[in-house]
């Protein structure tokens, strides 16, 4: 599958902006054919019952945790807002694990060796939002943002891929730029992001765009006031010594035989405690 964003090195400006803000918006990393294949696959899944989905080794978790906020009325028809694992669907979802347009950014911001620790899909209708969570001062060890010795050494990098156009009215992702380095607790924690707040930056995306961010960045999603469903994939990566998030790295049958070595290593995890070779450690 092709991708529009060119492969290659992370630019000096992108390094600067990632350190400055804690995120990067990558435009057009998924091509229209890839998007179509993914959306068709999800359309098919959404015709199935919860039990039928479970039989495919997929989970469908309706949003009930305290990061999710039902701000407006829930939809009357169709599925409620939900999230779940996605890799057992295989195909393009599997290819995204080592996507050439995003992999260089992961290698740059985490360093090697690293692993995929979660991949999930989220569907959100009108009325839903996600409250602000995380930030450097929280001292959450598995999300730590680190830049030292002229290198990024982040403990958790997530990529959200937009499968649908999502404007501010559609409940787009929102962040507090710079909060990955703030030494003060986030006063907006637990609140649905207000796009008008001077610290809050909503990040509208077109289908095929991606937002790559440090998990230490305070983030959430503004309320979806529109009529469009927001569909998002989240792929999460971490150093190899960190474990996977529950079932979120379970793959489809036959993965081992068809995956390329890099993809296989990202899912199975490289040796967890190998030292970074000296020539990769700027000292």
């Amino acid at each position, binding site marked *: 599958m092709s991708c529009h964003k060119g492969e290659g090195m992370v630019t000096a400006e992108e390094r600067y902006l990632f350190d400055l803000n804690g995120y990067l918006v990558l435009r057009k990393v998924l091509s229209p054919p890839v998007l179509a294949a993914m959306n068709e696959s999800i359309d098919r899944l959404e015709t199935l019952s919860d039990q039928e989905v479970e039989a495919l080794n997929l989970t469908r978790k309706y949003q009930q*945790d*305290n*990061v999710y906020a039902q701000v407006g009325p829930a939809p009357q028809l169709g599925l409620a807002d939900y999230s779940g694992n996605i890799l057992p669907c295989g195909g393009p979802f599997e290819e995204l694990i080592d996507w050439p347009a995003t992999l260089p950014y992961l290698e740059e911001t985490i*360093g090697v060796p690293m692993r995929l620790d979660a991949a999930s899909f989220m569907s959100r209708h009108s009325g839903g939002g996600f*409250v602000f*969570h*995380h*930030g450097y*001062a*929280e*001292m*959450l*060890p*598995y999300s*730590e943002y*680190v830049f*030292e*010795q002229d290198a990024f*050494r982040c403990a958790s990098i997530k990529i959200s891929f937009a499968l649908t156009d999502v404007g501010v009215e559609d409940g787009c992702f929102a962040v507090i730029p710079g909060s990955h380095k703030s*030494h003060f*607790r*986030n*006063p907006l*924690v*637990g609140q649905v992001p207000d796009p008008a707040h001077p610290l809050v930056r909503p990040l509208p995306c077109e289908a095929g765009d991606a937002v790559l961010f440090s998990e230490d960045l305070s983030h959430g999603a503004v309320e979806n006031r529109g009529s469009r469903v927001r569909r998002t994939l989240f792929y999460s990566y971490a*150093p*190899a*010594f*960190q*474990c996977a*998030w529950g079932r979120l790295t379970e793959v489809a049958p036959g993965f081992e035989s068809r995956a390329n070595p890099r993809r296989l290593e990202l899912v199975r*995890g490289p*040796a*967890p*405690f190998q*030292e*970074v*070779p*000296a020539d990769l*450690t700027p*000292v």
Partner: protein
Amino acid sequence: MIPGGQGRAGKPRSRTGSPGTLAGRRRPLPKKHLSAVDTTPIQRLPTEEDVFDLQTGSDRQLLSLDEQHFFDIAGYALLPEVLDPGQIEESRQRLESLARTPSDGVSLRRENDPEVELLNIVEAGGVLEDAMALHPALRHLQALIWGRQFRLIASRARIRGVGSRGCLTQGGKADPRRYASYRCGPEGEFRCLLVTCLIALDDTNAGDGAFCLIPGSHKSHLPHPYADRELDEVPPLRDLPLTAGSAVVFTENVSHALRPPRLESQSWLEFQYGPSYMENWPGCEPSPDLLRRTQADPVKSHLLLAPYYHPAGSQKKMD
């Protein structure tokens, strides 16, 4: 349960001043300015800890301020007499037996003759299993790693003979081992990754097999320049003589080494702990038998939980 880890304190800590307000952050103003400022108390906003329950027990500091300060500056803490003479003798005998005939689940490696390393010693049971959950060590681990969310990553024994080599680890920011990193927040919130509890089974001293380290090197920004030197030629290296049965707890990010024994072989027990989401050291995966026999022990079973990010039922704090 882990000592002191029965649950969260009811109120979050404030950085300064009285709990529940931010008023303590404000500097007193000269009297003549008082009429010009708004003296309405600042409304306290909810913090991450109020809203979520992601770091269980991390708001309960078990170490005194002196202990916290010492560890942050030096990178280690001494724990005297964690094993009694009977436990020391039993440990020695079990290690001798394992070195002759390793039991199921314990692997033997001769690192560089005459040193023997036994990996995953908790599988051998008895005092080698009990020593993973010594109260003085647990008290530090809960303070140093991530509240109640820590687990056993590796267990080893080292039988060091005369002539065993001593190798100084890098430590500090230049240490390539990301899993060894050290972090401490402004209020003494330690977030160490790998922390080691090293227990001496023989008396060690400066001239004979002592554990040694470079105090403060866990915060060094530069690589140490001693890679090619003998330990005797490293000026900042400090010996920590230990009597048999005593232990040292240290961040793996502090530069450290074991000096060679001069007269007789010396034995050590080494237990390494990390945050709950850290994988097992290869070769240290707990066997079904170990899990079965420790399941009634809340401390051991907690330490042997499979890696996890959050305990079941967390993240449900906010209505």
